[in-house]
């Protein structure tokens, strides 16, 4: 039977570094994806994810299982991501103005689109890429806190109480934050929403 996150963390506290390796294996992908969707840069997302794990490791001596491990983990990640987004906002605005047309960055390899590439369903591929780009753009346009709440809600599937603790707000305030975020997304993605309903 797999050990719980809390048990693994208590074992790390007792000096078992292998338990830390298990936690790393369990949460590296969710963390990197969450951070990537927050900062929109793969290298930076991995650097931030490393920093999250190092902070968890450094805090092992003082660890007390008073809350869910994921709450603690994503609170560190969210704070780091929000700080990073605020620090690099100006830099990202400059980059976006000069950015070339690229393929889907989600594959982690931001190649410049080669239209000459003989994709068997090039038209279909382009439609899908434009659709994904629109969705990503709508998420990127959300204010940082709304974006973090949506990512934690949608992709980490955390419950409202846990997300509220991560965001350090009340559950009611979180629901209101999420409602406003989904309202914005509904408007931004209106063409796709109409198609999805049809």
């Amino acid at each position: 039977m797999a050990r719980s996150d809390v048990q693994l963390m208590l074992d790390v506290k007792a000096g078992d570094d292998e338990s830390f390796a298990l936690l790393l294996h369990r949460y590296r992908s969710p963390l990197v994806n969450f951070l990537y969707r927050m900062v929109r840069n793969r290298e930076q997302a991995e650097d931030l994810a490393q920093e999250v794990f190092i902070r968890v490791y450094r805090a092992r001596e003082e660890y007390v299982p008073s809350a869910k491990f994921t709450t603690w983990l994503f609170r560190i990640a969210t704070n780091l991501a929000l700080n990073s987004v605020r620090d690099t906002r100006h830099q990202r605005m400059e980059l976006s103005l000069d950015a070339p047309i690229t393929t889907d960055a989600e594959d982690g390899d931001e190649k410049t689109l080669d239209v000459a590439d003989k994709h068997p369903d090039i038209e279909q591929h382009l439609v899908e890429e434009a659709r994904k780009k629109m969705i990503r753009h709508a998420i990127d346009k959300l204010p940082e806190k709304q974006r973090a709440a949506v990512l934690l809600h949608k992709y980490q599937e955390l419950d409202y109480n846990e997300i509220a603790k991560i965001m350090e707000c009340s559950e009611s305030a979180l629901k209101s934050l999420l409602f406003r975020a989904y309202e914005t997304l509904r408007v931004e993605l209106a063409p796709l929403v109409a198609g999805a309903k049809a």
Partner: protein
Amino acid sequence: MSCNRMENRILPYVDGRLKAGEMKEMEAHLKTCAACELRVNEFRAVSGLLDELPQIVPSGAFDARVRARVAAEPVKQSWWSVFAPSPRVAFAASMLLLATVWFGSRPSEMVPTNTGVEQEAQVVSDLPVLENMDVLSNFDALSDLPQPVSDESNQQQQPDTNTEM
């Protein structure tokens, strides 16, 4: 029930995370409110669109980089661990501590002083003299004391006192 009150329940309803009572209220409201029903459907569509974004895979070097940083972290040591490199120092310190405790706990009456015994023996040897009333009532020895020169009255009274005794 007003639409404003329903707003914060729309997303939990789409997620299926409402409590049973809230779910019933919501469904009753949706039957009578086309605007909220439309909102529910649009939120469902948005949620579906967000599902379309693929996940990225962390690079192959990610784990190795985290492990390297963990390995580079300074090891926290307790105060006792300063003895760890030298068990001999730890043993010597323990022995010194034990010796100190042992000497400190010895009862003090086990070490009598010589002066105390001698004083006690002197008192015991003087007891017969102190208990002899003949010796105590004989003041002849006082006549051997030198007589004071200046006080004449005392010179005359002193023999009388001796006679009466």
